């Protein structure tokens, strides 16, 4: 019982941190943080990062990692953009096909990761480092280092339009967060993800098809990249390969900060969502205060190490416990 309380209290602590940061930056910026403009930008900005972080979260829950997130999104975006900017297609076809290609190709890339990781049992980190390089290479090849632009007008709606006053990117993020929540915490597959993340041998011995579970995890991770790519290309009206690799680290930080165990098995979608907001708020706040963006990188790196170090110290307490068990 205690455990559950402790778990949800973690989320409250995070919420507290978020509130504190908002107040801090709010005061420091003399209220500028709360101007409609900034909030609007914020609402349009964080979903693409958020989707990537959710994609990272599912991989980390299984004890893996997806280093290819950003390059998956980039390549998916480029493939989508190539369809979108194809003058031979009429607008509706271009947009429909573009979205399908973008999301579909991302899922395929996830499937490639999943196939190698799940079927061959190759460590996820290495596989995704390999695919990261591979996807980047393909992207560079397709764009030859340049950018693709010239999308149909309507397509910008994805990145900058609103439905009922809610920005579409935000809506997309909320929908995906809810879907992920349901998948992870309410379906047999989700339950298997958690159990497998803690101990894949036990799940295998319990008749769970680890390969299938893992494969889907990486496809889902790819799907998140595809959706993030949609927002990216529509927001910038063009696409190129280099979206900034610091994203990758920031997604890991968000997931870990949100209470997900880097070794797998634990983590709630709610925690990740709040952590995403915290990190984006720091970025926005620094930006607003005119602090060099690089401080964000340093901060995020430091926070990541600090959180992990704290967790590892906590866990070494747990370890003692299990030692005792063995002997008792």
């Amino acid at each position: 019982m205690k455990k559950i309380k402790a778990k949800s209290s973690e989320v409250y602590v995070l919420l507290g941190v978020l509130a504190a940061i908002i107040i801090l930056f709010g005061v420091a910026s003399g209220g500028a943080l709360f101007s409609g403009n900034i909030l609007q930008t914020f609402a349009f900005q964080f979903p693409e990062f958020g989707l990537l972080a959710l994609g990272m979260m599912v991989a980390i829950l299984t004890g893996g990692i997806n280093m290819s997130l950003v390059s998956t999104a980039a390549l998916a975006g480029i493939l989508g953009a190539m369809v979108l900017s194809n003058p031979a297609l009429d607008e509706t076809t271009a947009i429909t096909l573009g979205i399908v290609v973008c999301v579909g190709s991302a899922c395929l890339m996830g499937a490639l990761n999943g196939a190698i990781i799940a079927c061959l049992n190759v460590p996820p980190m290495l596989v995704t480092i390999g695919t990261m390089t591979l996807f980047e290479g393909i992207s560079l090849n397709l764009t030859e280092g340049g950018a693709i632009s010239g999308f149909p007008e309507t397509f910008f709606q994805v990145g900058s339009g609103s439905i009922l006053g809610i920005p579409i990117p935000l809506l997309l993020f909320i929908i995906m967060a809810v879907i992920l929540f349901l998948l992870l915490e309410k379906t047999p597959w989700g339950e298997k993800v958690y159990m497998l993340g803690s101990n894949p041998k036990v799940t295998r011995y319990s008749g769970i098809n680890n390969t299938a579970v893992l494969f889907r995890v990486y496809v889902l991770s790819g799907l998140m990249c595809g959706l993030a790519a949609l927002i990216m290309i529509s927001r910038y009206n063009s696409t190129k390969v280099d979206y900034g690799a610091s994203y990758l680290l920031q997604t890991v930080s968000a997931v870990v900060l949100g209470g997900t165990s880097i070794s797998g098995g634990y983590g709630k979608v709610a925690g990740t969502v709040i952590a995403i907001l915290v990190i984006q708020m720091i970025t926005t706040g620094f930006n607003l205060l005119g602090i060099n963006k690089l401080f964000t990188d340093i901060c995020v790196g430091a926070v990541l190490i600090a959180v992990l170090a704290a967790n590892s110290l906590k866990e070494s307490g747990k370890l003692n416990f299990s030692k005792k068990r063995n002997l008792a």
Partner: protein
Amino acid sequence: MERVRNLFKKKEAGIITIFIIVMIIITIGNNAFLSPANIMNILTTNIVMGIAALGMLLVIITGGIDVSIGWVITIVTVVIGEFSTKVGGNLFILILVACATGAAFGLANGILVAHLKLPAIVATLGTMSIINGLVLLVTNGKYIRELPDYISGLGQQYLFKVEMAEGGFYGFPVIWLFWIGAIVLTWFVLRHTLVGRGIYAVGGNVESAERVGYRPKRVLTFAYVYTGIMAGLAAVVHTGIVRIVDPLAFKGFEMQVIAAVVVGGANVLGGYGTVLGTTIGVIFMGVINNGMVLMHIPTFYQKIAVGLIILIAVSIDVVQQTMKERRMVKVDIKD
């Protein structure tokens, strides 16, 4: 003795075969490939990678990884640039400064991984992002130029220089000595020192290593510090070749280094890996890049090739491992 050699060779034999096939293909594509000038060019352009890979090798044998290596090299080049332009000194002092700086960052990684027990990938990702921020903050992304001669001339120094009649010359580049030195040192450390064998022992079985008297934390920390020192050395050589300090020169470098080490037969799960294999891995990757240029394949394809090579190399590695485990004798059945 022979059996062990054969066993280590098995993996290396695979890469050597591929290596030779690739060389033949490239030579057919462009016979300039095998010219002495081109071979020297390949070796020289890969010295930095070669030295860095030796450091990475140690970490990978322990079962860890160091993704901060590219940015550690970068920050050392910045330190070198600042030191040599502002303080002066000489090459010897500069090398000491570079290695010490690298070692300091290696120590930080070592403490995080060995003492705080953070997963190596995350710990080094964290330091990577901190160093990345620091470097760009300090340099503003700007180059440092006009370095003193003793460092900027390093890449142009040759031993046994022989002028050719038709202009041009042959000679033994001084910077090769750095690579050769690093290879010999690393080989000696891994093969002939107790801590080197400890790196294999810890990578193979931490608990047993502790039982025979090793202190795994120290051994691990040593591996990361050594990687830092190699990063420092690589930074010196790099600066000596390019003669400026470019804060963005090593973006994405870590993945290439990891790829080279893995292609060279080191096992990412720890326990296996040799200096010979790693060095061949580096040269192999260098040859592929060089060959693609010679065969007029757009540079963008190089990344694809590298990605594919990583995927294939790690997959083969893991599949081999699984097969071996499957074949392992569990019960002595007597007929």
